[in-house]
């Protein structure tokens, strides 16, 4: 009997409850009726009594112990029906709660289920199937159409359309070719791939996202910490009240009923269920919110600072204009490309790309090269010294640039960065480079405005005129230009003093310090960039910036949901207490309301799982 399944026990208890009810109505409180009621109490109550005793061994009075005392007490004073009803309701409630609470966690669980469970690798010319944990770095992993990729790696052979929804939340497949990176947990929808494993097992982006989501769902919101403290005092207080009332009034039923309602179950779970549903909703759509506290903060942000390059723009600058003085345009690009061949700067990539378009790969290398951060670089080629950079660089070399000033300004006003190329005596030419504003940036800005964000500013290392042009195009409130990474931190500090809560949005490439120093760091395009994922509080796995407004909306909906739950739970607790004291609430009715309130709180949280789907916010 003690070892039957929960479901069978529930069915048996239900039958006994119906039987006791009918017997009571038809023949009244006869011996047989009482026996059936006691059996029903035992069937439903045994697991509760057992748990109560186990906890009592550690001197812990949990809800099981309180219910046990109430039930035993009820039987002693002859309230057999009440005893049976209380145990049955407690058991039935628990069963329904565990079924529904699973739903609040379902988004996260479905994410966990996306983890790859097998990997096919080629070792010594033979293909073998192994578990993904056994793959080592450098293994050749083979992926056939429809299969899940089990490592983070580089494509060595083949190309495929890959569904990256597990990571970015985006369901449209993307094409990946030789040399490009693919992620574990994504699915090759077509095409046959051979991948070199770069990151395996727990180091893969997918595994790290899972770890972070798992961590996040239990990072408590401030409200939650308060509630836990409250319920820690509430239960003992009610127990003491029950004892005192019993001593004064000798009213056993009243004292026992108080015990049944002493645990504010709905209150304890009101916050965690909302948060897990909210975080799950985000994770499913490629937005990782790192915990309850962040969830609370995100929705209350009033000021947002954006990094420009790679955040508001796509971060792939290209050459827009070439102006050459005295030398040929092609010659100018060639010289510039040679000078930039070692540089990692985004502007360098634009120049190299242009040169490649014109002449194919350039194999010539500079003889010497030196970079000055914030200015540019100088290099030697065929024994001659050249400079590539901004005004500061040329002024420091005492090279005349007054003649170029007008042209520079007109280019910069178009939102372009004008890079000068020169030798030791003069400017040879000017290359204008510009980045493209992301498609969804404008939509984002207008969404944020309608969401009540008061101020949006841009921080950039770019020149003032280019910053101004883009800032005006997008309708931002202010811009701060020509900033080094450490300047961004300083400007954020100043803004914090002025506006208190401020969020920083960046791509994490060179703004990790800024992301960390803001009240809230939001990283975009997080998949694959470890620093961004680590430092930011909110991570957008894909580069769709408009998801920022979805994330803010989700945060507000989650907080709203949490508040509804809390107020409801507090109200129920107060009404129950009052009801018991004025004797309108008896044992079984008290238990019924208690269980119902827990259930309602969970069901309310489940609504969050669908947030944004109907409104097509994602």
């Amino acid at each position: 009997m003690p070892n039957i399944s929960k479901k069978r026990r529930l069915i048996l208890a239900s039958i006994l409850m119906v039987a006791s009810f009918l017997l009571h109505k038809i023949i009244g409180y006869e011996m047989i009726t009482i026996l059936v009621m006691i059996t029903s109490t035992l069937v439903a109550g045994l697991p509760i009594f057992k748990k109560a005793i186990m906890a009592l061994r550690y001197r812990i009075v949990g809800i099981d112990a309180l219910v046990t005392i109430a039930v035993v007490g009820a039987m002693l004073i002859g309230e057999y029906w009440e005893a049976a009803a209380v145990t049955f309701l407690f058991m039935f409630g628990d069963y329904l709660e565990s079924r529904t609470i699973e739903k609040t966690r379902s988004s996260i669980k479905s994410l966990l289920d996306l983890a790859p469970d097998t990997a096919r690798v080629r070792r010594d010319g033979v293909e073998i199937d192994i578990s993904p944990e056994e793959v080592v770095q450098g293994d050749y992993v083979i992926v056939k159409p429809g299969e899940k990729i089990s490592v983070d790696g580089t494509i060595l052979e083949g190309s495929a359309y890959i569904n990256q929804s597990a990571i970015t939340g985006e369901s449209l497949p993307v094409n990946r070719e030789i040399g490009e990176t693919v992620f574990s947990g994504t699915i090759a929808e077509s095409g046959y791939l051979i991948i070199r494993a770069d990151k395996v097992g727990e180091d893969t982006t997918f595994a790290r996202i899972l770890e972070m989501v798992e961590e996040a769902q239990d990072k408590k919101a401030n409200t939650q910490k308060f509630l836990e403290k409250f319920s820690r005092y509430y239960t003992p207080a009610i127990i003491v009240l029950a004892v005192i009332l019993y001593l004064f009034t000798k009213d056993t039923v009243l004292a026992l009923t108080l015990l049944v309602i002493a645990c504010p179950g709905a209150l304890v779970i009101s916050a965690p269920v909302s948060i897990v549903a909210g975080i799950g909703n985000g994770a499913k759509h490629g937005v990782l919110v790192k915990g309850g506290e962040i969830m609370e903060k995100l929705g209350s942000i009033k000021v947002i600072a954006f990094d420009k390059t790679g955040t508001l723009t796509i971060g792939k600058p290209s050459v827009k204009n070439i102006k050459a003085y005295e030398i040929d345009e092609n010659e100018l690009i060639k010289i510039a490309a040679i000078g930039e061949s070692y540089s990692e700067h985004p502007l360098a990539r634009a120049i190299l790309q242009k040169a490649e378009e014109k002449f194919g790969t350039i194999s010539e290398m500079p003889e010497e090269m030196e970079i000055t951060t914030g200015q540019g670089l100088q290099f030697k080629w065929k024994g001659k010294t050249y400079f590539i950079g901004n005004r500061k660089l040329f002024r420091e070399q005492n090279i005349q640039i007054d003649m170029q000033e007008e042209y520079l300004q007109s280019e910069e006003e178009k939102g372009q960065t004008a890079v000068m190329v020169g030798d030791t005596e003069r400017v040879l030419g000017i290359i204008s480079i510009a980045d493209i504003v992301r498609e969804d940036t404008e939509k984002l800005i207008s969404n944020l405005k309608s969401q009540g964000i008061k101020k949006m500013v841009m921080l950039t290392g770019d020149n003032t005129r280019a910053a101004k042009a883009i800032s005006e195009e997008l309708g931002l409130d202010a811009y701060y230009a020509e900033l080094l990474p450490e300047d961004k931190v300083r400007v954020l500090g100043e803004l914090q003093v002025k506006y208190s809560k401020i969020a920083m949005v960046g791509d994490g490439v060179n703004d990790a310090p800024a992301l960390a120093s803001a009240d809230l760091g939001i990283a975009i395009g997080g998949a694959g960039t470890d620093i961004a994922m680590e430092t930011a509080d909110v991570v957008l796995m894909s580069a769709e910036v408009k998801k920022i407004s979805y994330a803010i909306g989700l945060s507000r909906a989650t907080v709203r949901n949490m508040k509804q739950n809390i107020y409801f739970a507090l109200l129920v607790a107060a009404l129950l207490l009052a009801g018991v004291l004025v004797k309108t609430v008896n044992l079984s009715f008290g238990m019924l309301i208690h269980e119902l309130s827990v259930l309602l709180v969970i069901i309310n949280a489940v609504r969050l799982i669908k947030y944004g789907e109907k409104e097509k916010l994602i």
Partner: protein
Amino acid sequence: MTTKTYQLETVTCPSCINKIEGMLKKTKGIEKSEVLFNSSRVRVSFEESTIESEEIKKKINQLGYKVLGEK
């Protein structure tokens, strides 16, 4: 001082949190414990010279919550 996380069977009842944390708090050698309600895990910081991980697992099991794994 060692910190370990134990994966439990799905925790669903609100009072489990207080029960498990309360028990661990009263156990010698355990510095800090936290029930992660949503992921059904318990994170415990303990002094290895006083109490072994196996002992902690046994205690949680005895309280009626099956420990499925640890890390």
